[in-house]
């Protein structure tokens, strides 16, 4: 199975085979509407395979994602504002990251994505950057499936700490408290790791091994 996947991948790298399943054609339609041809099967490395599989239970997925995407999103804005002008590469990086955390909230809710496209609220979004599938036998970016529980636990710890320092900062007007709050917010990204664990899917949902 893994060998078949690798073969498909190699073929894909040469010719850019497109997805053919129903869902994929829907996503293609969507991405065309957004203005990107991103749903072509073009994975730079076997580690970062791009596709858009549905999670086992989208509703729970979405609500959990919203919870821990918010701090990530806020951190991005903060850091982007601070470091925007320092380096070009960092700005690029932050923008990609910002896209990810924004798109991450809705990325599997295809209907709402369609709605957003129709409303005109979503422009040029890179749907590709948000989606990573975990294929058994093929390493993902981390080399392991991150623990969802650990992600949520640490995200909560840092969120509580952040809230505490923020309140203290406002009460005592000490900027050390605000620094600690920003740091804690940044560390909330630990929770982002659980993002990947939610996307664990069966290999056959990729329709690779025909």
């Amino acid at each position, binding site marked *: 199975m893994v060998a078949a996947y690798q073969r498909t991948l190699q073929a894909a790298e040469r010719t850019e085979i497109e997805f053919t399943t129903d869902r994929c054609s829907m996503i293609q339609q969507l991405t065309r509407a957004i203005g990107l041809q991103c749903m072509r099967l073009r994975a730079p490395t076997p580690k970062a395979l791009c596709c858009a599989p549905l999670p086992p239970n989208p509703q729970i997925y979405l609500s959990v994602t919203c919870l821990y995407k918010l701090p990530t999103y806020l951190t991005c804005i903060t850091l982007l504002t601070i470091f925007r002008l*320092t380096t070009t590469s960092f700005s*690029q*990086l932050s923008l990609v990251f910002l896209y990810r955390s924004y798109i991450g909230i809705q990325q599997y809710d295809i209907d709402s994505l369609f709605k957003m496209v129709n409303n005109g609220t979503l422009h040029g979004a890179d749907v590709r950057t948000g989606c990573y599938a975990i294929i058994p036998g093929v390493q993902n970016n981390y080399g392991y499936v991150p623990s969802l529980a650990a992600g949520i636990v640490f995200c909560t710890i840092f969120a*509580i700490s952040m809230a505490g320092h923020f309140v203290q900062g406002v009460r005592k007007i000490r900027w050390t408290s605000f620094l*600690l709050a920003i*740091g804690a917010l940044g560390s909330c*990204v630990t929770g982002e790791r659980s993002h990947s664990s939610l996307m664990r899917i069966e290999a056959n949902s990729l329709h690779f091994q025909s």
Partner: protein
Amino acid sequence: MQITTLIIAPTFFSAVAYIILGHLIRLLGRSSSLISPMAYLYVFCSGDLVSLITQAVGGGKASIAQHSGSNTKPGTDIMVAGIVFQMATIVLFVFFLVDFLHRTRPMAFSKGVRLVILAMVISVTAIFIRSIYRTAELSQGWTGYLITHEGYFLALDAAIMAIAVGVYNIIDPAVLLPPSTMSTESSVNSKFTYNGAGH
């Protein structure tokens, strides 16, 4: 990309340690330290900024290279250099901290100050441990042993950083440390003199 944010966040914690130490030196007198409180801020914050920019540039390069499927090694090497620089900064800070603790040993502190020193030492130790872990992790590359095992990440990064920031939640320097009257007075004075001179 999460990795970049996870690298940046702890520098805020270490910046807090520099500020607190500067504050303590102002409270306890200039003789308690080798260098002046402001020197801490300048030396270490600029050190942090340099390492941060190096890591961001390296991380950005590696990330873009990975995106386009090319070699990530140059970017990763720059990132490792940034992390090593950060560790060197922390080592230097630990040296000054030990010196401070040695000099202030005979002094009698209030309970609040003693607690804040304890909190700062715990936090700096945590940041130091994490920095060692990060250096070891990334010098093994993106597919090394440490980076591909979640347990190490959770114990030596997530949990350690939770301690580094959580200790200030429990022992809050914003509550325990009296505002440094000396510095505010002197800054107000200098402002007045400046204004006077200007007019």
